[in-house]
């Protein structure tokens, strides 16, 4: 019968092995440096990364990732990054070249890896973070990447992951409860940014938009007419203005269709620190509350 206790040789081996990470940790730079492509991802990373990690976003709060123009400072930050986090699904058209040009040795982590994307026309719809269930996938991908990169902090990372996931689950229930107060047939909303398809599918809200989901498309008279007809015919109750598009266009459409103009929905970026949506979870909660409020009140 074999001894249940480890042999002396394996003990020595183990202690040697456990010394290695300590040596490796001593050899590593003091703080993990993580660069995320945009603010929402950066916020997630802040929650999940080990204590003391430096997390920054290329496209900051209130900014538009579709028209992002990198500066030399961005290139420098990338060059020094240990990990580079991107959304993927075509969200960052500019990232490949920027990564190449910066010469970074940080590993590129695609947060949406494994997510089955919705389609928006011929391309994939990248806004998967608007569904908390898919956000769990993001969390898993990020945590796994952090744990791979900083195995010494595996436990801390796992703890943070579990905590974040539970907060996500709680938030998910809250959102569903809130929206349940509005009958499904009345949950019809217009927003000038077609970034909420995932949210709509997950939580049973019909989102319609006057423009395609990149901010560059120009409005056509036919599209505006279609939408006005849609609002009138479909009993759309509320119109939301995303924080980067032409608010005047949305106001005109709402006025003509007889819908309410709601507050702001945050789709692609956090608000500035101190604003109502300066973390990912707050962003989600804000959106849900704004939607529920606008839909619940009569037009």
């Amino acid at each position, binding site marked *: 019968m074999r001894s249940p206790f480890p042999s002396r040789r394996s003990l020595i081996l183990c202690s040697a092995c456990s010394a290695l990470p300590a040596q490796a940790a001593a050899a590593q730079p003091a703080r993990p440096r993580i660069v995320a492509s945009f603010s929402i991802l950066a916020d997630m990373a802040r929650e999940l990364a080990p204590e003391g990690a430096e997390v920054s976003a290329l496209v900051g709060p209130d900014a538009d990732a579709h028209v992002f123009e990198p500066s030399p400072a961005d290139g420098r930050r990338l060059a020094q990054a240990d990990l580079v986090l991107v959304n993927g699904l075509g969200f960052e058209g500019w990232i490949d070249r920027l990564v190449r040009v910066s010469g970074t040795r940080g590993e590129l982590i695609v947060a949406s890896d494994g997510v089955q994307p919705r389609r928006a026309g011929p391309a994939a719809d990248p806004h998967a973070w608007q569904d908390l269930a898919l956000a769990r996938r993001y969390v898993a991908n990020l945590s796994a990447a952090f744990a791979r990169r900083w195995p010494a902090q595996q436990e801390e990372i796992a703890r943070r992951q579990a905590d974040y996931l539970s907060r996500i689950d709680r938030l998910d229930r809250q959102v569903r409860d809130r929206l349940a107060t509005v009958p499904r047939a009345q949950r019809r909303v217009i927003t000038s940014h077609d970034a909420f398809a995932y949210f709509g599918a997950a939580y049973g809200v019909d989102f319609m938009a006057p423009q395609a989901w990149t901010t560059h498309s*120009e409005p056509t*008279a*036919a599209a505006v007419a279609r939408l006005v007809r849609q609002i009138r015919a479909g009993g759309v109750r509320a119109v939301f203005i995303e924080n980067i598009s032409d608010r005047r266009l949305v106001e005109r459409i709402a006025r003509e269709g007889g819908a309410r103009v709601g507050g702001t929905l945050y789709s692609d970026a956090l608000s500035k620190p101190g604003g109502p949506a300066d973390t990912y979870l707050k962003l989600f909660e804000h959106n849900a509350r704004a939607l529920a409020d606008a839909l619940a009140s009569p037009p």
Partner: protein
Amino acid sequence: MNDWVDPFVEFAFMRRALVATLALSLGSAPIGCILVLRRMSLVGDAMAHAVLPGAAAGFVLAGLSLPAMSLGGFVAALLVALAAGFVTRSTPQREDASFAAFYLIALALGVLLVSLRGSQIDLMHMLFGSVLAVDDAALLQIAGVASLTLFMLAAFYRPMVLESFDPGFLRSVGGPGASVHMLLLVLLVGNLVSAFQALGTLMAVGLMMLPAAAARFWVAGLPGMAALAAGIGSACGAAGLLLSYRTDLPSGPCIVLSCGAVYILSVLFGRRDGMLWRLLRPARHLAG
């Protein structure tokens, strides 16, 4: 009713867009004609870029406040226009070069200001509207500017024309050359900036210049040219809106391309120096 009128009957936004285009055409057609005759046709495009530093300054001072950014944009464009005008009057440099110089300086300043602030928000996108989204304030603004323009141009018609074709004579009789020059630039900037805001830069400059450039091939004198240009602009506004409605193409480009089509037809078939006209009919002699 018939197909052509239905969209305007059914939708208020179509009616407003039509009225906006009409008002814009009325106000900017005469200015466009004067620019064409004075060989200042590219100035409109220059002004579209000259607003940036002012809008950026407004943004820096007051955040995403549309009034602040608009006012800043207007002041910046005005400064560029007046500086260029001053250089043109005081040195041998002509208007095309002085405008190019100052608008490029302004544009670079604007880009610098925006990048210093760090925000990636497209200021220009915020500042420039769409013809489909004109609200009451924008309509009043365009109509007001158009009325003012027409009034001022009519009142100062004689010195304006004289300053355009013989500024030396105007100076020699002690006429208001500098004032009238500046008046033209102020009206130009006023029309453009108010139109940028309401309708976007493409439509603003397009409706100012294309009908004027086309009208040249039909009418010689300034009043007639301006009237025709205003008519072309209005008609193309309606045509472009209908086109955008029927074919689901962006409205601004549709309107401007309608003007473009009229321009090309004018170049080819215009009674005054149209290309094909000249080929088909030999030059006639005037009797003595």
